[in-house]
């Protein structure tokens, strides 16, 4: 009855920004990103990657409410960098990693297929 529609988990409502940024007013070089329609899959992936970056002093994420489909990603960096730059770095690094994985996986699969015939 009051259950939210399931598709709201991954369909971005009209007029809502996928990503928004709010700068921290008290802490220098800190900001909170709001990412809509994403969950722990992306949140944890980004957080762990950000923590490997030397320029990042703090990185954490939370999903404030289980029925609201957005996550908050808070980043604080050293003065030489900005939270946006750190996030951009993390994103491009992860995209590259996954692309490499995709490529190697495809290569190995075609190797196996040609060796063992059509196993499918």
């Amino acid at each position, binding site marked *: 009855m009051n259950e939210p529609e399931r598709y709201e988990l991954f369909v971005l409502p009209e007029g809502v920004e996928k990503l928004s940024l709010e700068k921290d007013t008290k802490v220098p070089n800190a900001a909170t990103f709001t990412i809509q329609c994403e969950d722990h899959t992306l949140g944890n992936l980004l957080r762990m990657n950000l923590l490997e970056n030397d320029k990042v002093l703090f990185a954490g994420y939370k999903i404030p409410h289980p029925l609201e489909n957005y996550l908050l990603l808070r980043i604080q960096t050293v003065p030489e960098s900005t939270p946006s730059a750190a996030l951009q770095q993390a994103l491009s690094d992860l*995209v590259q990693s996954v692309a490499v994985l995709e490529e190697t996986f495809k290569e190995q699969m075609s190797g196996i297929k040609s060796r063992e015939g059509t196993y499918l």
Partner: protein
Amino acid sequence: MASNHPTIEIVEVDKDHIKFSLSNADSSLANALRRVIISEVPTMAIDLVEIHANSSVLHDEFVAHRLGLIPLDSTNVGQFNYTRECSCNRRCALCSVELRLDFKCEGEQTVNVTSSMLYSEDDRVVPVVSQDMARPTRQNGDDDDDVVPEVEDTGVLIVKLQEGQKLSLRAIAKKGVGKEHAKWSPVSCVEFQEVPEVVINQDLMAELEEADKEEWAASCPSKVFRYDPVSRQVEVVENGRACTFCRECTLKGELLDTRINPGEDRFAKLVRITSKPKEYIITVESCGTLPAADIVQSALAVIKEKLSNVQAEMNGAWQ
């Protein structure tokens, strides 16, 4: 961080299973892969059911729910649109497939209505029929007695009909993801585990009596250790791959301590079990809708797309 990229290596693969190792990767990547495989790989499943006649013992909703859970061959899912993204008004051949079922039990015998009686309008999306069951399999080598007789896969049971009962319906299959409903999930099981590293302290082991060595080696429920009576040594089987980190071997060592040298803490350290850093083994078990390898490939593409979406938003909106 270019040289720091994770690598993937396929360990074993067949149609329904795949096992691969992910090394130089954080657990967050392994977990993202697991989560995406469960809930964000698109497949086809029956979503709408129009019942024309149903005099079976199950009520309409019950039958509709069971139809939804029937695995449909989704190898061609890439050729379909999501209905909500399709350019059509309500639904069309680009975003849905119609299946029909029409059966009346005429004879006295109870008849099983199964998924193989579902007639699909589109050859690209049909109920899954197990190929392993259709093919005779050999077990235990070439012994002819062991040939399992050919068994025809009769499909998934929907309902049983008695004489005079009838079931007639029209079902619409759509593309979807497991996040919306578990019927769209392509897997029955995905798991990732750490890789065990088992090292025996052989100097300490040499202090044990032969019988104790044997007893200690037998303490492992996963049979990671083997006592070799010829060399009189305990060795690790297959690099300890079977180890489940249960610590039974350490507990056995403690027991030996209390018996041989009470109060000391020596034989508890007979073996050191750690997990290899940044390495995971992922096992995927398909439920038949997609080949296991395709599921992984699709999942990697989904993760990349999720990341690129945010990336595109960053590049577009600001900076």
